[in-house]
């Protein structure tokens, strides 16, 4: 019996501006613990929109979303922020590090926000994760001084700091060259195989998707293959 980490039931979403367009139609699926799922589909098919709903950042939808068997729909902003902090890790296409901080501090921030560990422990955990991703030597660098591939790895380290139930990625390799894409992909692969980490990655890259465990394909707001 596999444990369900994330479940969507009958999710619908419409954009109203400038005309009403239905972007998601009755999307229902579940992700089990330890799965490496990629979501593919053409531009505009609604896969990114789905990801942001699943991430709890977008609350303007109908249907039910369960993370760790808890219903997310209709909860207040502060609570959702706490759940994002604790249970979800993010990796975006554009690396989105805070340029005011060092690499180490960037990784530590969500951990400090969670407040489960003391500052020393959070720092220790952050360095552990940077080591795992082979970028421990960058810890004291300013975030804007490192290369794109390195930034994406820092973002992954940040996503991992609170041991989230699931890591979500919105085209995490979309902005990287082949070599760096491979590095990032291998990291994901290792995370899911060695650490039983659940991953849900939206991607354009068919090669990336082929190598993951499971592919969800979308078209016109519907899931057509999973």
């Amino acid at each position: 019996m596999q444990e369900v980490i994330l479940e969507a039931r009958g999710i619908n979403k419409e954009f109203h501006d400038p005309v009403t367009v239905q972007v998601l139609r009755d999307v229902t699926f579940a992700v089990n613990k330890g799965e490496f799922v990629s979501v593919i589909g053409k531009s505009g098919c609604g896969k990114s929109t789905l990801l942001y709903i699943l991430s709890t950042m977008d609350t303007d939808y109908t249907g039910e979303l369960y993370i760790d068997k808890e219903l997310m729909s209709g909860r207040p902003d502060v609570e959702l922020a706490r759940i994002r902090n604790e249970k979800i890790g993010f990796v975006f296409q554009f690396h989105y590090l805070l340029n005011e901080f060092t690499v180490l501090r960037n990784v530590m921030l969500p951990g400090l926000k969670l407040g489960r560990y003391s500052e020393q422990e959070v720092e220790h955990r952050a360095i552990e994760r940077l080591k795992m991703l082979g970028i421990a030597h960058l810890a004291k660098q300013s975030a804007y001084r490192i290369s794109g591939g390195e930034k994406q790895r820092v973002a992954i380290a940040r996503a991992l700091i609170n041991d989230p139930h699931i890591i979500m990625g919105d085209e995490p390799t979309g902005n990287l060259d082949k070599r760096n894409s491979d590095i990032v992909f291998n990291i994901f692969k290792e995370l899911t195989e060695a650490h039983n980490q659940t991953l849900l990655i939206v991607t354009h890259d068919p090669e990336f998707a082929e190598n993951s465990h499971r592919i969800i394909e979308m078209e016109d707001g519907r899931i057509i293959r999973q």
Partner: protein
Amino acid sequence: MNFKLIYSIAKSMLLARWRQTLVAAVGVTFSIAMFITLLGFMNGLNDLLDGLILNRTPHVRLYNEIKPSDNQPVNAAEQYRNSYNFISSVKAGVTRQEIYNSGPILQAVKADKRVLGATPKLLAQVFFNEGTIDITGIINGVDVEEESRLFNFKDYVTTGNPIDAKNVANSIILGKGLADILVADIGDVVQVTTAQGERFPLKVVGYFQSGIQEIDKVQSYASLATTQKLLGKPANYMTDIQIKLHDLEQAPAVAREYAQLFQVDAEDIQTANAQFETGSSVRSLISYAVGITLLIVAGFGIFNILNMMIYEKMDSIAILKATGFSGRDVNLVFLLIAMSIGFFGGIVGLVFGFVFSVIIDNIPFVTAALPTITTYPVNYDPVFYFIGGTFSLITTYFAGFFPARKASRVDPVEIIRGK
């Protein structure tokens, strides 16, 4: 713990754009410094001008006004009681300028707990004889020691020793203007003619300078005993009792009470010098208005800079929200940024304000009219510093309020997808 984290984020954002921060803080610093300097200088000047009159004006003055009686005999007559009596050409009767029963009144007043001190005074109208020319003047017969203690008399005696007026028999302290007219040096003898026609020689022992020319040309001081001798009156003769209270604000009430109690005329300082009160309060009002305007302008500066900062930091705000910071946390970060600009800018402003005040306080300001003043007057009342400090925090809070709210409402999805 959470607050510490938010504080560290705010601090990093502030320091990352330290030039912008500095400009905003300098705006606050400048306005607070100007606010303090302006108020300190303005109030110093106010105090000086008020002091010019108020320091040596009795809070309550008891005297006997020469005026016709309110109770004319016809009103008392039985057969005219119910009629309306017209009396023309009413004259003052046998009233005297002297305060009746002055000794006991003086004792009773001095025993009153509200009273700091009371001193008798005797006004004598005289002519100073300069060759063939007579110059009108007034001799104030005073108790020199009490006058000095209560009304700062000795501060205004610029040449000579005020106590000589008491110790040297038949002596006088002339107003500086009057002395110039009479060409009287210290040690000279001036001839004085009283209203009754008696001629009297008085020895000049000092000059007195009040800062108001008109007064210095007319007034002069002598001891009470000398003046009584001049007028040929006994030792209990006095025309005024001057009273200084512990609390100036009580003067009108005390004046009313004494007028009733002692059956004399009583005038309080507020009635006698209403225009000074008005002048000071209007001047204070203007300086507060200017100071607060400066602060509000600085507030708009902070508002602008924070707004700009939020546009620049959209990505950071989005990422903070995506990784679990709530709208409230983001709001707090930006409020904290605004408030720390206000706090540090304000503190430096208070220091600069104080420094400017000290500088002004040391600029020489010598004027013949004000013998006791050598530099520009400045008031260092801590209340100004308190108001300035509080106000810098309040303005920056409001300047930060709207930008912070805007930041807290940033939708991370829009920013992240918008790229």
